[in-house]
């Protein structure tokens, strides 16, 4: 199912994704509109913050596979033990990496709960307020295409690309596997949009810098340990313990100084 076998495929994807910020900023700034500029500034802050955990969570896969080539990464996952595939999702670092990647990709594609750049109720659709008709359609098409692309990358990195999760289902063609995985995750994206409310700006930044970034760095360490320890139950135990401890400590740190009491309205009551 590969169109080109590109040696630096992962790097290419992130380079193209990094250029999105410039275009969002140009759209918002050139509207000469307060709300558009606010949306563009929010978009830049959010995308720059979440790009770092996105790339760092993908680095673990590169470390273990030893290649930036996307089809090499899929080939590495295409082995079976006891009938279950060696997807990166089924390892401690891969599970954490996939969750981090998933959250960061929600933020990169400006989906709820990270849709602050285009918050309709706050800044009237943000950076594309002034664009209507065909230009609006282009913005939305681009956004959804970006979403599909980043999900496809996540599937390639962690969910075994076009391979089957269990060995007795390998007779199903690869394109059906890939498309069904893609559709399942798009479903989750839309499900989350219907479930979660929008974050506040300080919550967004705290979550990115105080939780996701340290956890992604620890995850890189765990992937290194996983690579060098012998392949038995001990490395499962060690890696899971490190990740769980880091998760608990970081989560507690994030929850500090947060007052989760009854909300007090100063002006509304």
């Amino acid at each position: 199912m590969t169109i080109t076998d590109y040696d630096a495929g992962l790097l290419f994807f992130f380079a193209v994704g990094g250029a999105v910020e410039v275009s969002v900023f140009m759209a918002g700034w050139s509207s000469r509109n307060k709300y558009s500029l606010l949306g563009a500034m929010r978009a830049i802050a959010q995308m720059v913050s979440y790009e770092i955990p996105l790339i760092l969570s993908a680095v673990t896969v590169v470390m273990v596979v030893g290649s930036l080539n996307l089809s090499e990464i899929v080939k590495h996952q295409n082995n079976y033990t006891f009938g279950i595939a060696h997807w990166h999702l089924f390892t401690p670092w891969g599970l954490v990496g996939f969750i981090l990647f998933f959250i960061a990709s929600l933020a990169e594609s400006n989906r709820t709960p990270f849709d602050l750049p285009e918050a309709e109720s706050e800044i009237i659709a943000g950076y594309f307020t002034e664009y209507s008709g065909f230009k609006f359609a282009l913005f939305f098409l681009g956004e959804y295409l970006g979403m599909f692309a980043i999900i496809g990358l996540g599937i390639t990195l962690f969910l075994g690309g076009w391979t089957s999760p269990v060995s007795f289902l390998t007779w199903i063609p690869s394109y059906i596997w890939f498309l069904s995985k893609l559709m399942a995750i798009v479903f989750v994206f839309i499900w989350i949009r219907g479930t979660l409310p929008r974050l506040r700006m300080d919550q967004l930044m705290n979550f990115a810098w105080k939780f996701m970034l340290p956890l992604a760095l620890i995850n890189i360490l765990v992937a290194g340990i996983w690579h060098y320890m012998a392949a038995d139950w001990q490395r499962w135990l060690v890696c899971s313990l490190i990740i769980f401890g880091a998760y608990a400590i970081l989560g507690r740190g994030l929850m500090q100084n947060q007052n989760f009491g009854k909300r007090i309205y100063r002006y509304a009551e």
Partner: protein
Amino acid sequence: MSPFFIITAVVTLLGAAFAMSLRNLVHCALAMAVAFSGIAALYLQLDAQFVGFAEILVYVGAIAILIVFAILLTRSGEAPEKSVLTSGWMAGIAVSAMVFTMLGWAVLNSSAIPKGTPPAPVATVKNVGDALMTKFVLPLEIIGLVLTAAMIGAVIIALKEEKK
């Protein structure tokens, strides 16, 4: 010289020239992003994939955005009415052209540089990664340390001073 090289070179040079001479600072920053993309295209044309994509990722995706962010957060107001170039720009160009001619002449006639086109080195992304992790691991670590120190310094400058 291939047409692709000429086009990218012209785009890069125009971007750099506009980055220096436009009145609106945001336009300058965007022109600089164009120049960075042109440089990345030149690297890619030379088969230097790692450097090319890193150029886009770091310079267009991060540094141009950072400059734009800094412009918008620090100064508001309209672009200056008169030209931003000083009156002596012709003399500046003449001096820099002379320096360039001098350096180019010196480089071309130097005995330290071998004549003729050397064979193209094989530098795939994998080779670059291997070299960075084995032969050049110490410089890489030192750069990481320097950048971390710079980041900590920036955080300390940006910290709120505690009132005593």
